[in-house]
């Protein structure tokens, strides 16, 4: 399957019909999720700030998951020379960076009224900041190397090194005590439903943006190759 999808033409032909469906699904899920988020009851302890959870948690989960996906793509690119692997990782990086930044910002805006401070150098917040810096480093490194093959190799190594940080982000609340709460299981239906719908909306948005950005990357690589051929002739 992975080899089958390595052909950019085949990949584009297969995923093009999905894009409008994903765009519609994203709009529908965000509209439903936002209505549910602002009709759900406020928390007895946190009041209305609990509504920040509906955007903070999906952003944090996806910031982590996207980096894991970049790591897998980088591995395939580095070891198996998969034709689309580097393009996929490159397409994912800005999406993951924005979501991780949003997790940090919304976390700070949630933390200020609940903890009395927007930031503490505890395990979760610090490792989340490190994750964001890995994203920024990946994007900057890719942009700074003109040779696509060398850029793919160097950024793949950086992405794989950054994977070490993922378990630290996830287990930081277990390993060290800090202001950030431990990973919780939501059992109240009033909170669970809007959270799941908003998570679905974010996943759908990420999938849609990924296909758009990967298509851009394929088109860009095609025109760079064509331009080089034309200038050579």
């Amino acid at each position: 399957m992975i080899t089958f999808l390595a052909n950019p033409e085949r990949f584009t032909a297969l995923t093009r019909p999905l894009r409008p469906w994903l765009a519609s699904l994203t709009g529908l899920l965000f509209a439903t999720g936002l209505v549910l988020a602002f009709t759900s009851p406020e928390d007895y302890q946190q009041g209305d700030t609990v509504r920040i959870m509906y955007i903070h948690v999906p952003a944090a989960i996806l910031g982590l998951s996207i980096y894991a996906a970049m790591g897998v793509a980088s591995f395939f690119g580095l070891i198996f020379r998969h034709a689309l692997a580097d393009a996929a990782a490159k397409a994912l990086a800005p999406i993951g960076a924005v979501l991780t930044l949003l997790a940090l910002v919304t976390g700070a805006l949630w933390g200020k009224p609940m903890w009395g401070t927007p930031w503490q150098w505890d395990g979760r917040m610090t490792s989340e900041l490190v994750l964001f810096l890995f994203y920024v480093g990946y994007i900057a490194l890719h942009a700074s190397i003109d040779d696509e093959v060398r850029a793919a190799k160097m950024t793949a190594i950086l992405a794989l090194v950054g994977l070490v940080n993922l378990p630290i982000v996830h287990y930081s609340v277990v390993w060290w005590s800090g202001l950030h709460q431990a990973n919780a299981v939501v059992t109240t239906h009033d909170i669970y439903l809007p959270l799941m719908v908003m998570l679905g909306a974010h996943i759908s948005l990420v999938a849609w943006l990924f296909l758009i950005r990967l298509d851009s990357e394929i088109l860009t690589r095609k025109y760079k190759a064509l331009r080089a051929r034309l200038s050579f002739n």
Partner: protein
Amino acid sequence: MHLDLDMGKYAVYVWGSYGASAVALVTLTLLSLRAQVRARKVLEALQKAAETL
């Protein structure tokens, strides 16, 4: 089902979070779509140039 938009004393934090998310995600979407359109246009122009050679 009652839509509650009055966030009381937490309005700055709640609306600040939703506002930041909206701005960031809409900007990312627009930039991604613009890059796709640009890349397609450049490729089409180069393909036309290649045909004339």
